[in-house]
Each structure stands twice: as C-alpha cells, then as structure tokens.
C-alpha cells in the first residue's frame, strides 16, 4: 500500500541568497531581499519535485500546509492536497490562485496542470548572484544527497535561506511567488498565495504533517528549514538518548528511532551544510516517489547543521549541529556485487563503529564527538551518549557526558596516558573539526598531542565527498596545518580508507 508524504514549503526560502545578503533569516533581511527585487523560488522548486512524484503516482494525496507553504504547489502539480496546517501569521490567505480551505479540507485543484517546468527564471529581477567562488570545491553531495542546492553554497560563503529560526513573524516579511511566467512555454508555476511564514510556521506545519500521518516530510528550504523541521519532529517523538542497556545491534536496518519519521530536503535555500538534501528538486521528487511505493527503502542518518546568519554576515562561519535526522537513502541495486555490503547505511554505521571499537585501547581516554556514528560507538560500548555533544569514554566507561571545552581540558590535564578524539564526518561537506563539534577545540587538540584523531565514518560518507578533501577548521591555522595530509578513516570491521585532509584556512 502506498505511503503518504507530507510537504512543507518555506515560501521565502532562498530569497536572500540571490540578493547577496548571505542568508535571509529574519524579517528585516527578507524585506531587504524583496526590496532588491529577489523572488522566492521555493514554490517552483517544490513544483519541480512534485511533478516527478505526480508522474509516478498520478493523483496521489499529499498532506501539506496551506497556500504557498505547499498546497499551491501540490495543486499545480496535479496532485491532491490535504491541508493540515494553515499559517498563523496575521496576513495569511490567498490573493490569487487557489483558495485555501479550512485545515483538513481538500484543496481544489488549480486549472493549470503543466507537466513540465521549462525555465526557473523568475519574473523578478535577480539582482545578485550568489558568490560562487568556491562552490565547486565545497559543493554537493552524498549519493542522492546534497549539502548544497543549485546555488551551491561554499563553506566560507554560505548564503542564507529564508526560513529564519529567528524570524519573529513581524508583518514586514512578505514573500511573494509571482504568478506563472508566460515567457516559458510550458512553464507553470504554482499560483501563489501570499503567505507570511515564520520558523514557527515551519515547525507547526511539520508537526501537523506528522500528526496527520505523513510518513515522510518533504520540505523545501535550506538549513534553517531543516532545523525547524527537525525540531518539530523531535518534539513529536520520544526523545532521545538511546537505552544503553540494550544490546548493541549493529545491523538494524531501520533508521535510528530518535526520529523515525524521515525527512527529505528539496534544496531551495542556499545555506545547506546539512546532509538531508537531495541533489536537486527532481532528484528529491524521484526519491520521494520511490519512498511512497517502496516500504523497504532504507534510511540513513544525517546531520542538521545551521549557521547563525548574523555571524555569516559578519564574516564568521560557525555552524552548529542541531539534530540527527533520518533520510531515505538509495545506493542502487548494483549488479556484479563482489562483496557483502551493508543492507543499509544504518548497518554500515554499525560496522564502522565495530571496526573502530576493535582498535580502541585500554587506558586511552577517548573524546567521543557528536554524530550518529559516534553515538553508535557509544551504543556498542554500552555507555550513554550525548548525540549532539562530546562525551569522554575510557575502558568502556563514561568519564564525562556532554563535556564543554573547558571540561575536556580539565579531563585531559588529569588523565595519564594516551588520549584521542574520536570524530566522524559532520554534514555533507566533509568536516572533521570545526563544524558541530567545536568543543574539540584547538586547545583540546593540542592537549591530545601528536596524532590526536581517530576517525570513523561509513564508506558512503567518504565517497559522497566526490574527491573533495576532509576538512578541519579549528581556528588555529598552525594546528590545522599539522592535521592536513592523509588520515585513516575506519569504515568497517577490517576496513579503512586513507583520505586527504585539508584546512579551510
């Protein structure tokens, strides 16, 4: 039986990027972007993804939010929208195109059912292109997933999307997706509803989608949207730290129970460090379409990272790890398989963790970094874990949970003998240090001495880098330099990859 997806569009996603504003979080920024003539393209991107779904599942029902938060795009794609959330912002409603009915009601179809989006140029003038100076180096991708959208964000030049966790819903923010552009022959854009949305709307909509039975939340936006969606899911699920008394099973084929409802990002923002985005709207649509009819589609756990955009605009990049989420994950049924492969990314995580545990030594203090792979290490060791923080472990015992930098330094000064930081690859861009695990600071690393790192990651996370190096960014250029070169990454029992490490500076 087909499963039901939920769609939520952050209608102002991406508005700030083309405007050269390094992000669009916050009402003032969005207003500024609009003033510069930028147009939100989230609706178009949503439509592109939905068209692919519609081709595979004609007439499928999609749970969604009202107006430009989803229902418009759903209807434009010829699918049935069941609206389960209406934005609470004061001026929400529709100015043209479809009328949003009460939550829970079927949205009427729009009259335009184009199957193909010709161009994605918007009628509004794009006044500024994103800074693409390092997009090649820092772009893309996991197999099927992207750290960046079409307008690829560089690590150092991350543009912002428009969702805005810090947007407060002030009336000034107004994203407008313009009506269909007659210039594109077959181009159909969702009839736009003029809706003001906030981060609270994203969160509220995500929660409503899950409550209404969505098995997959397809969201259109950027890192901020991902963060809001993840927050909503976290609130609806039983939290969090895994029961460490349960026997370690590296081979669970399902995703991690923390967020059993998977999410999938349609890249529309441009600030996308998180690993939960497909490479393109069409790719997201194809994956979601497959998810609908294939209950065996495996899941993988990926990080949601987000940067405080104020910092970016001030020239600093300091993304934090906010959540771990499940995403559908296809590696393809390959012919001529030569060796046993893990049935899923989750199984691969289990094997990588087993591999690195095999090499753990008695008496060594391990600073276990954040991320799903490190959490699996803790689970197999049978110790509690802080998924988004740093824990200190020695001889199979927890020494300190969720340690701050200062606490780590104290531990190290008190510890006799060897100590190592055990880290995994965070986000889609290949960071080992400096993204989401800032507690393992330059000072901590210096205290660890030479060869401070033990790296564990799945093969797919390494191959997804497509040859781009692993990255370190501790803020200490000399230290970063000393960490560059080649490092051994444990990828499984009996297997490792030797991979290049570079410094961002």
């Amino acid at each position, binding site marked *: 039986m087909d499963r039901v997806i939920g769609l939520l569009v952050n209608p102002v996603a991406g508005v700030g990027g083309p405007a050269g504003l390094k992000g669009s979080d916050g009402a003032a920024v969005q207003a500024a972007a609009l003033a510069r003539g930028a147009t939100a393209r989230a609706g178009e991107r949503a439509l592109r993804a939905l068209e692919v779904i519609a081709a595979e599942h004609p007439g499928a029902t999609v749970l969604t939010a009202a107006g430009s938060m989803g229902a418009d795009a759903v209807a434009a794609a010829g699918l049935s929208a069941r609206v389960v959330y209406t934005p609470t912002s004061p001026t929400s409603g529709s100015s043209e195109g479809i009328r949003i009915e009460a939550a829970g009601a079927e949205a009427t179809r729009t009259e335009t059912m184009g199957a193909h989006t010709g161009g994605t140029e918007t009628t509004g003038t794009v006044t500024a292109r994103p800074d693409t100076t390092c997009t090649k180096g820092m772009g893309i991708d996991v197999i099927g997933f992207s750290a960046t959208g079409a307008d690829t964000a560089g690590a150092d030049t991350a543009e912002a999307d428009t969702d805005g966790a810090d947007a407060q819903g002030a009336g000034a923010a107004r994203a407008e997706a313009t009506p269909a552009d007659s210039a594109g022959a077959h181009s159909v854009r969702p009839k736009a509803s003029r809706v003001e949305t906030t981060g609270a709307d994203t969160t509220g909509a995500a929660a409503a989608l899950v409550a209404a039975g969505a098995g997959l939340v397809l969201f259109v936006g950027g890192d901020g949207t991902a963060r809001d969606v993840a927050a909503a899911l976290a609130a609806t699920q039983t939290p969090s730290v895994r029961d460490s008394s349960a026997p370690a099973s590296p081979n669970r084929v399902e995703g991690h129970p923390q967020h059993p409802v998977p999410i999938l990002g349609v890249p529309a923002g441009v600030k996308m460090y998180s690993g939960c985005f497909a490479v*393109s709207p069409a790719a997201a649509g194809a994956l979601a*379409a497959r998810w609908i009819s294939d209950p065996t589609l495996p899941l993988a756990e990926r990080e949601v990272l987000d940067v405080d955009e104020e910092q970016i605009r001030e020239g600093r990049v300091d993304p934090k790890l906010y959540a771990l989420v499940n995403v559908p994950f296809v590696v*393809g049924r390959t012919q001529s398989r030569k060796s046993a*492969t893990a049935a899923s990314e989750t199984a691969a995580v289990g094997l990588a963790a087993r591999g690195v545990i095999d090499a753990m030594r008695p008496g060594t203090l391990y600073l276990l970094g954040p991320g799903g792979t490190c959490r699996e290490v803790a689970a197999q060791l049978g110790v509690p874990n802080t998924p988004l923080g740093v824990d200190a472990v020695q001889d199979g015992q927890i020494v300190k949970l969720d340690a701050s930098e200062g606490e780590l330094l104290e531990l190290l000064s008190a510890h006799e003998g060897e100590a190592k930081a055990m880290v995994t690859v965070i986000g889609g861009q290949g960071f080992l240090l400096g993204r989401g695990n800032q507690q393992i600071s330059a000072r901590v690393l210096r205290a660890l001495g030479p060869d401070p790192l033990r790296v564990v990651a799945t093969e797919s996370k390494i191959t997804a880098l497509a040859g781009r190096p692993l990255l370190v960014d501790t803020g200490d250029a000399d230290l970063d330099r000393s960490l560059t070169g080649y490092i051994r990454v444990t*990828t499984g029992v009996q*297997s490792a990859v030797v991979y290049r490490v570079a410094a961002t500076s």
Partner: protein
Amino acid sequence: MSLPVAPKPAVRRFHQASWDEKIIFELSTPGERGVLVSRPEPGVRSAVGDVVANLPVSLRRKKKAALPEMAQMRVLRHYLRLSQQNLGADLNIDVGQGTCTMKYSPKVNDALIRTTKLVDLHPLQNEADVQGILDLIWRLERMIAEISGMHAVSLHTSGGSTAIWMNISMIRAYHASRGEADQRDEVITTIFSHPSNAATAKAAGYKVITLHPDADGYPDADALRAVIGPRTAAIMITNPEDTGIFNPRVKEWVDLAHSVGALASYDQANANGILGITRAREAGFDVCHFNLHKTFSTPHACGGPGAGASAVSEALEPFLPGPVIVRDGDRFSLNRDRPQSIGKVAPFYGVVPNLVRAYSWIMALGAEGLREVAEIAVLNNNYLMKRVLEIPGATAPYAEGRRRIEQVRYSWEELHADTGITTEQIGVRMSDYGMHYWTSHHPYVVPEPFTLEPTEAYSKDELDEYADALTQVAREARENPEIVRTAPHNQTVHRTHEDTLDDPEKWAITWRAYQRKYFS
C-alpha cells in the same frame, strides 16, 4: 503500393521473446517421464536383493522427491523458451557491461571442445592417456606466462575472484614462510580497483585499506606513501582501473611495496586494452591474474563457469596450487610433490573446457592479433566515449580531457539532477531497445554511474547504434520521462515488484517455499 519498404528508424524497434512460461512444476503431469535410467540387471538384483527395502529405516526416503513429471520434449520446449528470453552477448551489442569484457566467444571454440576426447576424460586417468590435454594446458600456461611476462602460471581457479583469492593465499603463505605472517596484516587497494581485491583480502583475514584517487583522478601515490609500511602484506590493484584510467606511476607503487617488504598483486581483469602493450613483469609485480572469460573470450555462461589464470614470479612459484604440469621432452606429467604449495584451490586442474577455448582463441590470433585486439578495443572505447559525451547530461568524471584505455565509468549526475531519472531507470529503458546496460560496482563513487566497455568485438556501426539508443533514452528522460520510469515496455516481463525480496516472511527462494508461504 507495398514496396519499397520504408527506411528503418534510427533506433531499433525491438521486442524480446515473451512466452509467458509457467514455472516447471506447473507443467508436471503424473506418470510422464523425461528420461529413463539404466536399471539393475537380473543378475545384480538376485545377488543383492532389494537394496532400497534393505536400507536402514532412517535412511529410506519416505516420500519421493516432488520433482516435476514431464515427457522429454516438454522439458526441452520449456527450456528453449526460457533460453529465448535472455539478452546474451551473441544477440545484443553487449558493450554495456563494463569491466566484464563481453567480447565475441568464437563458435569454433565451442565446437572444438565437444569431443569425447575431452568431454569423457576423467582427471585421474593414466597420464599416458591424457597427454593431449596436458600438452594443451601446458602450452596455455606458457602463453599466459609470456603475455604477463611472469615466471609460472596456474590455471586452476574457476573464476576471477577466486583467482584473486588464490593470489592472496599465496601472498599469505609467502609471508608465513618468512616468519612475517603476523606482522603483515594489512592489504592496500584503490577504490577503482576491482572490489574483489578488497573482498578476497578480507576473507583471507586481512585489514583492507582503500585509497581514493587524487585530484586528477589518478591513483593517489601520496596516499599510498602515507599508509604503506611494515604491516603491509600486499598492494592489490587493477590497472587500468575501472575508470579506464591507467596509473602511469604504477611502477613507483610496486617499488614502494617492495621497499617495505610487501608484495604487489596485479588484477588484470582490465587487460583487454593492453595485451602486448605493457605487462605485469615490466611494472615489477609479483603476481597477477587474468579472467579467461573476459580477455580470453570464454563465454560468460549466465555467470560461470569462467576461468582464472594466475601468473607469479620465481619467488612465488613454490606456493602455486598443485599438481603442476611438468614437461620432460615430449612427455607431460603431474607433479604433486610441492611442500610449500597452498594446496588445492579447486577440484583437479581448473575449468578444462574453458582452458581449451582460451587456448584456441590465442592460437587464432597470435602476437599480432592480440595486439590488434588491444588497439581496437582502445580505439572503440575512445570512439564510444566521444559519442557518449555528446549526450547532454552524460559526463566522464576524473582525468578530464584525457584518453581512456578500454572502458569508461560515466555519470548521469547532470541528467539526474535535471530530471530525477536514475541510472538504473536508464538501464531498464535501454533494454527496450535490445541493449544491456550496467551501472557500477558498489559503492557508487561516481554518481549515477554507468560503465561501458566496447572491447574489440563490435563494429563501428554497432557502437553507433548503442550510442544512438543511449541518446534516445536520455532524450526521453527529458521529454517523456514517464516512458523511462515505467520501462520496460518491450521486454519478456513488465515492471517487476521487489517488495518481497527483502522480507523473510514473504520471500520465495524456491517453488516449495512459495507454495508453503502462500498456498498452505
């Protein structure tokens, strides 16, 4: 006005045979017989009595096996119908199965083996009665030795992966003979070497370290330098790699291995483009292997039997599996007295019918012919690459702008981003045009990969037809993605569901399991 017939369309209107055949158990009719069996003579019966009744009760089968009961021609017809529902290499332009060297398996070689002088030989017969086959195998060994430049050859293994296993087993024995078995517990390979290298090394108990390519797409010598050391038992690499890129620094790699006391093992699965051009010997390798079912033309047989040929240096010769064929003047004998041998790797002396086929293939070509095979395989590949790269959305990652040897691993990454169509879906649709298509080994290092290897066996027109079909499918992905997503349309069966294949409660690996799970 019936003539003239209109010209053919650019792309073939193909439809595969579709017999809608039942499963063989459904064809059973009680009492029918497919073949009768020689029965015990009265004299035997009277001497031994009722042997079945005399079986101990625990050994007497209670119920006859529930095999189908079918007259002979019905069995034949059923299986011939099944045979028609395959896209064998004799029928399709089989360039789509890169890394597998799907070349022409000459019919004469199939005919040559069908003689009672080969079919009805027992491996333990009097050596005097099997001189002909021993002679032939010995000659093939010498030819492989020359083609690789190595010292000695074993043809015992029945596939490529098991040949690599044999090589790692000899490497293990070599280090053990020097007292270094425990010290050397790591094997180094590259991500674009055949995955069998990593898989067999793991099965042999080694830790496997995989190197990724450098920024230019070549195997990363600096990465090798960073990791190789006293724990290294061997480097096990393919060259050219599965990308079709030849590692120009391969000798440096081998020298690095030797400098730390490790051995260098060369997977020559991709040898078809370098026959007579460069050899394992020149690069200094200690051991290599060929797949006779790839480079040396023996048919792929639905997935075997193939045959492996392992070639070794003087230092590794004592570790070869036994027995080995020894020539003394005109006489050939089997030497089983080999104290350092790793022992048996397969029953007897290898897949003998394929050894005769491979021998005949080399004899039909000679030195000049083998070089021509390589050169045309490479020409065909670069020609096909030019055609493929003209298709919008297709790329050839790594070593941009460089020539490739005998195959290329391409990517539909751009097409996928534009359309959501995956490489698997392209492959299914290609079959509608009568073409086989393959993606890549796992993992997909190249996004949305496909791997084409045209070999020397296909004509320019055929390569063009394959490229035309790919072009057509890529166009469909943009203009009519529905037809791609819902493929196949012209195949034996329609879109096959996959939802029970991973569910232990539901999967049906045999007819009896299917009956039990769904009808009882």
